C-alpha cells in the first residue's frame, strides 16, 4: 500500500465517523424540533428524545463498525473487478498480437509439457512407492545371487530380523485340455509369498507351509487375468484340478486366485506354484539353483543394516559347510537392499539427467519469453505512459503485466498438459520396455498440480522483468513526440543481450549432452553381436516333460521338427540352442580345464553353458575360428564340445585349444573340437564371457529355441515355421516366434529410448535458442532503424550497416557459446556412467555442437541484420 492509499483510507474513515454523527444529529434535532412545535419546552423535549433514542454513542459506534465492514466489502469487490478487467485487457492484448501469442504459447506449451511428461515418468518409476502394503519394509536378499530352495529356507531360518522370506523363480508350465495347448509363465515361490508381499489372493487362499514339500505341492494359485481368460472367471474354480504340467506335476489343484493386478515384483505371470525342496536335500545337494530373487519383509522396527549383517553371517555360515555356495567376493557382498532402490537403481541417474534436461529446456523457454515480453513491453512504453498519466498506480501497472504473464503461463500450462498426455500415449510401449514400472506412467492429480505450479512459476520468471520495468519511467518521456513508442533505455538492450547469452549457454549444455548420448547409443547399436541376425526367425519350442519321457524320444522329436523346417521353401539353414543370445537368461556351470589345477579354497571357475544342434553355428553365421563346429555324433561317446574365443584365450593363451579336455562339473570329460567367435550372450554392452557348447544329442532335457535363416537375404514367414512345427505334433506349444532382428533391437530398447528422448530435447533447445536469438535481433535492428537511416543518409555503405548489426548480435551468442561449452565440460562428468564407447569430453561431439550452434546463431542474427541495410533513409527521416 502506498502512502496515498494509506492517506485515503484514513481520511475515508474519518469521513465515515463524521457522516454518522451528522445523520444521528439530524434525527435527534428533528425530533426535538417536532416536539417543541407541539409545545414541549426544549429541555424536556431533549430529555424525552434522548431517552427514547438510546445511547447515541454506542449506536454511533455500532454504525461505524457496520460502515467499515461495508467499505471492506466494497474494496474487495473493486479489487476483484479490477482483476477481471485486467484479465480482459490481457486477453485482448494477446489477441491483438497473434504472432507473438502463438510463439509464446507454443514455446511454453512445449517446455511445460515436456516437464510434465518427464515428471510423470519420474513419479511412476522413482517416487511412487511399490504397490504393496508398507513397501519400505521389503528388501531384496543378496541381490544378484542365485539361490537354491534349501538356501532360501536357510536364510529364512537364520535371519530373525525378517518376519517372512520368499524366493521367486519364473518357470514355464504347459496347460492342455479344454482349449489349445498353451505355455504359461508361472512364479515358483515360497509358501509365505503372499503374506510377505502383503496382498492375499482375492479368491481362496495362498499356500500352506506343508505345500512347500514334495508330497503336497500339487497346488496352484491362478492370476486374475489367467483365471478370467482361460476359465471364464469360473466362480467354482477353487478345488478344481487342472491339467497343468511342469515342475514334476501333471495336474494341480487350484487353491486360490490372486488379487487383480497383483504381480511378483515386475514380472507378469499367469500362476503361482510352490517352491519345493526335494526330500532329504540340503544346500549342498539341492539342484534347484534357479531362484534368482529372494525378497524378505523386515520385522517391525528392524533396520536394513541389522538385516544386512544377519544375511552376511548366514552366507558365511553356509560357506563353511558348503564352499561351492559362492566365491569369497560374493560372500562378502551378501546383504539386503531395500526393494524399491534395487528395482529402480539402474535408471535413477538417467532419469534425473533427463529431468535436468527438461528443466533446462523450460528455463530456455522462459528466458525466450522474458526477452519477447521485454521487447514488446518497451514498444508499449507510450501506452504505459498514458495510463500512468490517467492515474493508474504503479502497483496497478505491475499487476496488469503480471496478469498478462500469468494468463500466458496458465494457458501455456493447459497446452502443456495436452501435449504431455499425447506424448505419453505415443511413448507408452517404449516406456514400458525401457523402464522398470514403466507401464504405470500417466498424468494424474499430482502431476497436474505440479504442472500448475510450474506454469505459474514460469510466468513469474518471465513476467517479472517486464512488469517491473514497465511501471517505472516518467510518463512525460513516453509521451514526448519522436518516441515512436519504441524508446527503451540502453539498460534494456543490455538485459536482452545478457538473456540471449544465457539462453545460448543453456542450449549449448543441453545439446552437448544430447550429442554425447546419441553417439553413445550409436556406438552401442553398431556393436557386433557375434552373429548375423538378418533374415533369421526364432521359435522357442517346449514340449512338456510328460510328452517325451525318454531323452531319445525328445531328440527324435527335435530332429523331425528341424527336418520339416529345412524343407520349407526359402529356408537356408536351421539350428537350435537352448538359450538365445541377448535374452538375459543364462546357465553357467563349473569346470576344470586341462593343464589347470583346481583352486585351493575357491569353488571351480564357471563358464556359460550352451546346448546346440549341428546346424546352429552355420545358421547364425558365427565364425568357426579353429577346428570344426558341433556335428552329428558329438553326443558321444566320446562327448565333444566347442568353446568360444574368450574361453580358449583364457585357458590356453597362445596354444592350440583343439584337442584339449575340459571336465564339466569337475567330472564330466569333454573334448574340445573347435573354437568359435565370441557372441554377446547377455547384452550388447557387456563383455563376452567364457562359453562352452555341447551337442543336444547328449543334453536332451531342455526346450530349444530353433533358428531358421531365409535364403538370399530374405526371411521365412513365421506362419510357415509354426505350421512346420505343429505338423510334427500340434500339441507342443510355441512361445517366442519372431524375427531375430526384433530380439536384438529390443535388447537395446532402453538406451535407444533415452537417446531419442535426449535427442528430442536437444533439438527443442536448439530451436528455442534460435528463435530467441532471431526475435531479439529483429527487435534490436528495428529499434535502431532511425540511427541507420541517419547513417545511410550521411553516406555510410549498406554493408557497413549490416556488419554493425551483425556484430552486436553475434557477441552475446559467442559469449553464451563459450560459457555453455565450459559448463558442458563440467557437467558431462555426470553422464559418464551412462555413456558407452565415448568419453564425456569427446572432442568430436563438442566440435560439432559448437559449429552448429555458432552457425545457427549467425544465421538467426544475419537475417534481421540484412534488413537493416535495406532501410530507406528518406522515409526514416521524414516519418516521426
Amino acid at each position, binding site marked *: 500500500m502506498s502512502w496515498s492509499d494509506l492517506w485515503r483510507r484514513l481520511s475515508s474513515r474519518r469521513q465515515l465517523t463524521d*457522516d454518522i454523527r451528522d445523520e444521528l444529529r*439530524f*434525527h435527534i434535532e428533528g425530533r426535538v424540533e417536532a416536539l417543541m412545535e407541539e409545545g414541549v419546552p426544549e429541555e424536556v423535549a431533549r430529555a424525552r*428524545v434522548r431517552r427514547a433514542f*438510546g445511547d447515541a454513542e454506542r*449506536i454511533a459506534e455500532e454504525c461505524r463498525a*457496520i*460502515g467499515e465492514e*461495508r467499505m471492506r466489502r466494497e474494496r474487495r469487490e473493486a479489487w476483484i473487478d479490477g482483476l477481471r478487467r485486467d484479465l480482459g485487457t490481457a486477453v485482448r492484448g494477446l489477441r491483438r498480437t497473434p504472432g507473438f501469442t502463438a510463439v509464446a504459447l507454443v514455446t511454453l506449451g512445449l517446455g511445460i509439457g515436456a516437464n510434465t511428461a518427464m515428471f510423470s515418468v519420474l513419479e511412476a518409476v522413482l517416487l511412487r512407492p511399490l504397490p504393496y502394503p508398507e513397501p519400505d519394509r521389503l528388501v531384496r536378499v543378496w541381490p544378484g545371487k542365485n539361490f537354491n530352495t534349501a538356501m532360501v529356507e536357510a536364510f529364512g531360518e537364520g535371519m530373525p530380523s525378517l518376519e517372512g522370506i520368499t524366493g521367486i523363480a519364473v518357470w514355464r508350465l504347459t496347460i492342455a485340455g479344454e482349449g489349445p495347448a498353451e505355455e504359461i509363465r508361472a512364479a515358483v515361490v515360497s509358501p509365505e509369498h503372499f503374506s510377505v508381499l502383503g496382498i492375499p489372493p482375492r479368491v481362496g487362499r495362498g499356500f500352506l507351509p506343508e505345500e512347500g514339500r514334495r508330497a503336497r505341492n500339487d497346488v496352484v494359485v491362478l492370476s486374475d487375468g489367467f483365471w478370467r481368460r482361460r476359465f471364464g472367471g469360473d466362480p467354482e474354480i477353487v478345488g478344481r484340478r487342472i491339467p497343468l504340467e511342469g515342475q514334476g506335476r501333471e495336474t494341480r489343484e487350484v487353491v486360490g486366485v490372486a488379487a487383480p493386478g497383483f504381480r511378483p515384483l515386475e514380472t507378469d505371470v499367469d500362476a503361482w506354484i510352490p517352491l519345493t525342496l526335494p526330500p532329504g536335500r540340503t544346500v549342498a545337494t539341492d539342484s534347484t539353483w534357479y531362484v534368482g530373487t529372494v525378497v524378505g519383509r523386515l520385522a517391525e522396527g528392524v533396520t536394513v543394516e541389522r538385516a544386512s549383517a544377519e544375511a552376511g553371517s548366514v552366507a558365511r555360515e553356509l560357506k563353511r559347510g558348503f564352499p561351492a555356495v559362492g566365491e569369497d567376493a560374493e560372500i562378502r557382498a551378501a546383504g539386503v537392499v531395500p526393494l524399491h532402490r534395487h528395482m529402480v537403481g539402474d535408471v535413477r541417474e538417467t532419469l534425473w539427467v533427463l529431468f535436468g534436461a527438461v528443466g533446462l529446456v523450460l528455463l530456455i523457454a522462459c528466458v525466450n519469453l522474458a526477452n519477447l515480453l521485454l521487447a514488446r513491453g518497451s514498444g508499449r512504453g507510450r501506452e504505459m505512459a498514458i495510463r500512468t498519466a490517467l492515474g493508474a498506480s504503479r502497483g496497478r501497472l505491475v499487476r496488469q503485466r503480471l496478469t498478462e504473464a500469468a494468463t500466458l503461463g496458465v494457458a501455456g500450462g493447459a497446452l502443456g498438459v495436452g501435449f504431455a498426455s499425447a506424448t505419453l500415449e505415443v511413448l507408452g510401449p517404449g516406456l514400458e520396455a525401457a523402464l522398470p514400472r514403466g507401464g504405470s506412467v500417466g498424468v494424474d492429480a499430482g502431476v497436474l498440480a505440479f504442472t500448475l505450479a510450474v506454469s505459474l512459476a514460469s510466468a513469474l520468471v518471465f513476467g517479472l522483468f517486464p512488469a517491473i520495468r514497465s511501471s517505472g519511467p516518467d510518463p512525460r518521456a513516453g509521451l514526448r513526440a519522436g518516441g515512436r513508442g519504441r524508446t527503451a533505455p540502453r539498460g534494456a538492450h543490455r538485459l536482452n543481450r545478457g538473456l540471449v547469452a544465457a539462453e545460448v549457454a543453456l542450449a549449448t549444455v543441453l545439446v552437448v549432452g544430447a550429442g554425447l548420448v546419441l553417439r553413445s547409443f550409436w556406438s552401442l547399436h553398431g556393436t557386433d553381436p557375434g552373429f548375423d541376425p538378418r533374415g533369421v526367425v526364432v521359435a522357442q519350442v517346449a514340449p512338456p516333460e510328460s510328452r517325451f519321457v525318454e531323452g531319445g524320444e525328445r531328440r527324435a522329436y527335435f530332429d523331425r521338427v528341424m527336418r520339416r523346417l529345412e524343407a520349407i521353401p526359402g529356408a537356408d539353414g536351421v539350428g537350435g540352442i537352448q538359450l538365445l543370445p541377448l535374452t538375459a537368461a543364462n546357465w553357467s556351470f563349473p569346470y576344470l580345464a586341462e593343464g589347470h589345477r583346481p583352486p585351493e579354497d575357491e569353488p571351480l571357475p564357471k563358464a556359460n553353458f550352451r546346448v546346440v544342434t549341428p546346424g546352429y553355428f552355420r545358421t547364425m553365421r558365427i565364425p568357426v575360428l579353429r577346428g570344426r563346429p558341433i556335428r552329428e555324433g558329438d553326443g558321444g561317446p566320446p562327448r565333444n564340445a566347442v568353446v568360444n574365443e574368450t574361453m580358449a584365450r583364457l585357458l590356453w593363451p597362445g596354444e592350440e585349444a583343439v584337442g584339449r579336455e575340459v571336465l564339466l562339473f569337475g567330472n564330466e570329460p569333454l573334448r574340445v573340437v573347435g573354437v568359435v567367435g565370441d557372441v554377446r550372450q547377455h547384452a550388447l554392452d557387456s563383455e563376452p564371457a567364457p562359453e562352452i557348447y555341447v551337442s543336444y544329442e547328449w543334453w536332451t532335457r531342455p526346450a530349444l529355441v530353433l533358428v531358421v535363416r531365409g535364403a538370399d537375404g530374405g526371411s521365412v514367414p513365421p506362419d510357415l515355421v509354426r505350421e512346420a512345427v505343429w505338423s510334427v505334433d500340434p500339441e507342443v506349444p510355441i512361445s517366442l516366434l519372431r524375427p531375430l532382428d526384433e530380439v536384438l533391437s529390443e535388447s537395446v530398447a532402453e538406451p535407444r529410448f533415452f537417446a531419442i528422448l535426449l535427442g528430442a530435447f536437444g533439438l527443442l533447445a536448439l530451436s528455442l535458442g534460435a528463435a530467441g536469438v532471431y526475435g531479439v535481433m529483429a527487435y534490436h535492428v528495428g529499434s535502431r532503424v532511425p540511427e541507420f537511416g541517419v547513417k545511410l543518409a550521411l553516406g555510410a555503405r549498406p554493408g557497413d550497416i549490416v556488419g554493425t548489426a551483425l556484430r552486436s548480435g553475434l557477441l552475446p551468442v559467442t559469449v553464451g557459446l563459450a560459457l555453455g561449452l565450459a559448463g558442458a565440460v563440467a557437467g558431462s562428468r555426470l553422464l559418464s556412467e551412462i555413456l558407452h564407447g565415448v568419453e564425456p569430453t569427446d572432442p568430436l561431439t563438442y566440435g560439432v555442437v559448437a559449429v552448429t550452434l555458432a552457425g545457427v546463431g549467425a544465421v538467426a542474427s544475419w537475417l534481421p541484420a540484412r534488413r537493416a541495410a535495406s532501410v530507406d533513409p528518406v522515409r526514416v527521416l521524414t516519418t516521426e
Partner: protein
Amino acid sequence: MGRIDANTLYGTLSLLILRTLDEEALHGLEIRRRIHGTAGDLLRVEEGALYPALHRLERDGCLESEWGRSDRNRRAKFYALTEKGARRLERETAGWLEHVRGVGAVLGLAVAPDPEAEATR
C-alpha cells in the same frame, strides 16, 4: 422462504424499513415517522435501533444511500431500495405471513389469508 423469528427485533425492523422504502427514498427520521404513523402504538420502535438496521441493510446491498436536502433544507442522508432489497422484501414478507399463520393455527386462531396469494395459487 425465510422464516422470520418474531423475537428478532432486527428481523422485523428490517422488514418494516424495506416496506416503508418500497415507494420512495426517505431519510431515517421520516422512516421512523411513517412506521410510527401507520402502526401507531402497536409497535414500539426503539429509535436508536433504526440506524444500525439501516446501515446493515446498506452493507448487505439492500439499500443505497445518498446525501441530500430535507424539506427544511437541512443536509440529510436518504436511503432507497435496491433490486436486491426489493427481492428480499418479497421473500421476507411471504415468510413472515407463513410464520404468523403457523402460530395462529397452533393457537386455534383464524388468520385472514392473503387475497393476492390466494389468487395466484
